[in-house]
């Protein structure tokens, strides 16, 4: 499932393994991405149990990607071969 944020055109893909864990897992994952789900409640619904729609907005920046392990030190360039005598 992809989610398009309400206040931008940003598209966020919910990973399948999260979606498979169920509804609460999806909401937790969105929260971890800094995305808040807001219910826009129907004013005609006195019990306010139903929402007219859900808005998705980013309220915090997306978490930084996992650090990449240190790259191996750049190889020191070998000194140029001495010119062949002749």
């Amino acid at each position: 499932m992809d989610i398009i944020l309400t206040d931008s055109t940003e598209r966020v893909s919910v990973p399948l393994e999260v979606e498979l864990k169920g509804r609460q897992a999806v909401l937790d994952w969105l929260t971890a991405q800094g995305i808040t789900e807001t219910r826009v409640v129907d004013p005609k619904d006195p019990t306010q149990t139903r929402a007219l729609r859900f808005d998705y907005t980013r309220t915090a920046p997306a978490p930084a990607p996992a650090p990449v392990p240190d790259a191996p030190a750049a190889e020191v360039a070998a000194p140029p071969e001495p010119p062949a005598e002749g």
Partner: protein
Amino acid sequence: MAVSTPIYNNVWAALSKLEASYGAGAAVTAGADAQLLADRCVVATSFNDMGARTASAGTTGQVPNVAPSGKVAKTKLTVEGRGLGAAYGASAFPPDLYLWLQASGHLATLSTGTYVFTPQSVPAAGYKSAYLELYGDGMKFPITGALADLVWRGEKTGVSLFDFDFSGIMGTEAEAAVPAATYLAPTIYPPKANNIALAIGAYTVLRAVHSFVFKVNRKIAERTDQQSGGTSGFAFGDRAPTLELNIEREALGTFNPFADRDAGTQKAITLALNGGSNNKINFNAAQAQCTKIENVTLSDAVAGLKLTYELKTSSSVTDDDYSLTWAS
């Protein structure tokens, strides 16, 4: 005289979940994963090789087969086209077809309380597949790696139906009673096709609409495998979506599909079923070309047209030939 008790087959159920990887199966429960079927499910099992051997040398009979391999299943699962009846969200889905629309090669997108399903072309994360656990005839039929072709039809003025023609890897049949399933939003009634809104280009259809049939026509090819017990399941091929409409003929000065057909004119078609708040299904095809017209008789005496539209993409790199929307 002693009489036997029959095994009944007039109850059925389908439990289903998307698979984390193709053919992996899934753990389903009757409480969380039941999809409400509109019709009895019938599983047709076949093998891609029955183990037949070469002709018998000394008789005109047949020598016995080796055990068959490549056990696959085809089944048509039908659900009603209906909405949730409450706002859609990351945890509130269209009932019964949210998973299977994805397993029929569609991307589900949630955008401000609306679910949109668009066709996919070789997605980077892979196509989604379903695990099906079907119950009927007093038996359980487990099917992994299930992929579906899709048909949406509204015949006469009744409830519209979605047919999912699944192909998958068949497991072992077992004796099992139909589980006591919990369905999503079972009290929400589906919209009927008695006040659809249909527009073809600038023409809003004002004459009687008798039926519509939308077909994705997605190819599903079997992957025969000399490993893995004879089959590696199925793979999606190309799609060739069409929309067939049976409508009463309009004066050609108002709506002329013959001229559209002859000129290859592209028209935007919208078709909407409205069952009230959060119970709406909208179909949209922006580049529909009329390729076939049959003059037919409707209601015994009325001039009708059976129009076949081929639904095209706007370019060779966009999946915008059609979309299905569950709107708020």
